[in-house]
């Protein structure tokens, strides 16, 4: 019997080490996950119904207006510091020809206007959600957040936190390409 324990297959002998290694890998992966990124249940579903007044313009903006083209719905507010951080990237996307709609979340019209005057207005129109009620329907829990909505009005992605170059090149552009190929 003592001989048998020495004859243990190498796999068996290293089993504890392998299990330990797997556990380390799992925990390491878990450490890398950001608990603040709550996946949106809206992805793959039609945009929630809403109708909001426009900032500094007459008329309304509703879920129907999202259809027809790929839309980036950018949740921003004048009180949101990270919105300034992503402002350049949003402006760049707007200049590239994307339809970028502002979703002014829990803000005041005067503050939002001043903010846009100071930093520049990249939005085609800005919908005002002053009390955040429509934001709840969209599952907004902070700003900035950006929804990618396809030409059929289906929510395709949600970016939580500032849009940056990494997101644009690695997620947004491939997704836009995919949507365009579905379209044709």
């Amino acid at each position, binding site marked *: *019997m003592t001989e048998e324990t020495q004859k243990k297959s190498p796999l068996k002998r290293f089993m504890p080490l392998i299990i330990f290694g797997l556990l380390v890998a799992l925990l390491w992966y878990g450490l890398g996950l950001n608990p*603040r990124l709550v*996946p949106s*249940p809206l992805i793959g579903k039609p945009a929630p119904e809403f109708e909001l007044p426009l900032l500094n313009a007459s008329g309304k903006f509703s879920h129907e207006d999202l259809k027809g083209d790929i839309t980036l719905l950018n949740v921003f507010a004048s009180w949101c510091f990270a919105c300034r951080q992503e402002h350049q990237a949003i402006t760049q996307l707007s200049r590239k020809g994307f339809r970028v709609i502002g979703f002014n979340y829990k803000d005041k019209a005067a503050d939002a206007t001043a903010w846009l005057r100071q930093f520049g207005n990249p939005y085609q129109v800005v919908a005002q959600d002053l009390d955040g009620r429509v934001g*709840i329907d969209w*599952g907004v*829990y902070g700003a900035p957040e950006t929804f990618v909505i396809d030409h059929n009005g289906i929510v395709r992605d949600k970016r939580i936190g500032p849009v940056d170059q990494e997101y644009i090149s690695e997620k947004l552009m491939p997704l836009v390409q995919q949507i365009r190929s579905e379209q044709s």
Partner: protein
Amino acid sequence: MRVIMFLVMALLLTPVFAAPVVTYEFASEEQEALFNKLSNELRCLVCQNQAISDSNADLAKDLRDEIYGMLQQGNSEEEIVEFMVARYGDFVLYNPPLKPMTWLLWFGPAFALLAGFFFVVRIINKQKKSAVTEMSGEEIERLKSLQSEAKAMIKTEGKEDK
């Protein structure tokens, strides 16, 4: 100076347990109980380790208002939970539903315990076995011959009894 420093430090250490003041008025006690149950079971997304009942975050307040409004309109508990999950996902539930995605969450600990138990039993068995077999070849031979002698004796005794 020291005393002042001490007081300032002590003040800094004082935890702020300012629970939001509830100013809702309910039609019935059941409704109030349901409101408290729901706002304790739903997680605040801004400050993730708080329920929306005890969070001071702006969004938590909005969601409390939303629950209150829905209760006033006569929505059931299920409808309100569904409303929240449709918008924020299973993440808002402190009590996540049982489904393939959450099997590991629900059964993982029990499975780990069982696996641990299994290995402990196996190790103990192995040790028992090796304890018994730590005998030299001669001893084993002797044991075997004794065993066969005993067997033979039992057999012959049994026959004699008949």
